[in-house]
């Protein structure tokens, strides 16, 4: 999996590409900890280019979401490819996250 860190409108953005499974959660956890530990946590996770995500990886994102919301922030997800969109639906996590078609909309959505 490729991990690209950037920002948009002063919001931290994490872009993940490839296959996101239990082998790959550590750096993502570290990034989430770094950006959800202080102040109002508003972050974007861009999943363009991701074609598979397993349950451990999903839990990692859910934990990030919880941490953000506890700090009156949010974790916005954007650019889901079809397989990942279907996985979000089947696990009903599409109801838990605010999911946006593009990174731009994810940033505007705060």
């Amino acid at each position, binding site marked *: 999996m490729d991990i690209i860190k950037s920002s948009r409108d002063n919001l931290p953005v994490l872009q993940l590409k490839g*296959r996101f*499974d*239990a*082998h790959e959660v550590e750096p993502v956890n570290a990034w989430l900890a770094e950006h959800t530990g202080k102040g109002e946590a508003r972050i974007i996770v861009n999943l363009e280019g991701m*074609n*598979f*995500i*397993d*349950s*451990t990886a*999903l839990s990692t994102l859910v934990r990030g979401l919880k941490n953000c919301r506890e700090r009156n922030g949010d974790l916005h997800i954007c650019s889901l*490819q*079809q*397989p990942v*969109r*279907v*996985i979000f*639906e*089947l*696990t009903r996590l599409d109801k838990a996250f605010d999911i946006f078609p593009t990174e731009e909309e994810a940033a505007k959505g705060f």
Partner: protein
Amino acid sequence: MPYENYARWKTEAITEEPKLSIVIPAYNERERIVATIGAIASHVSDLGFPWELLIADDGSKDDTVALCDDLHLVNMRVLRAPKNGGKGSAVQRGMLAARGTYVLFADADNSTPIEEVSKLLNKLEKESFDVAVGSRAAEGAEEGKKSMLRKILSGGLRWIVRHIFFIPVKDTQCGFKMYTREAAQKLHTKQTIMGFSFDLEILYLASKFGYKIAEVPVSWIDAPGSKVDTRKEVQRFLRDLMTVKMNDLKGVYR
């Protein structure tokens, strides 16, 4: 990638014979199976032919079966087993229940990404092979993350399989294999081994019965959460090799 194809597969029962049946053997897979079903359903629905998905439960003690039933996918069937009988028994149950012209079995961890399915299908459909086995060893395969111990063990076993048992496949154990329905029925009806080495018996039989076997390089990720104890499995593998040979000599496969 129109989402509508998946949406239709999810809600409209197919009426014609499926071109492809996909069987996922599942033992205590509550953590891994939903994501795999999602990846498969999304990809295969876009290939443009009728297909069905079969979850061959293997007496799971967790809520794998309920979880799958809850997904409400009309073209997915969940086959229950009263008790755990080993991966081979689950694959057998799925293979014998499959209605597709071609039948694939794929592990519940999506360790061979479903995107590889067309490589196998082409071998059967366009090049008239009877059996196409995904291979982590054939030239061109990407091994991804595979531990050193795994690599050494599989090298030794490979040698025995090829030079003593004349099975023309480098990687017998890959959990990604496709058969014509006719071959699947015949091979799995004769199957006697229900543990992890069932692949070996099936391939031995396939070559004995004269089926055309293709070994197709596929990518492979050593997926997290494997429930296999490597040392125990290697011992069993060797024992099962002997069983296959003895069975053959005794005429069990006639």
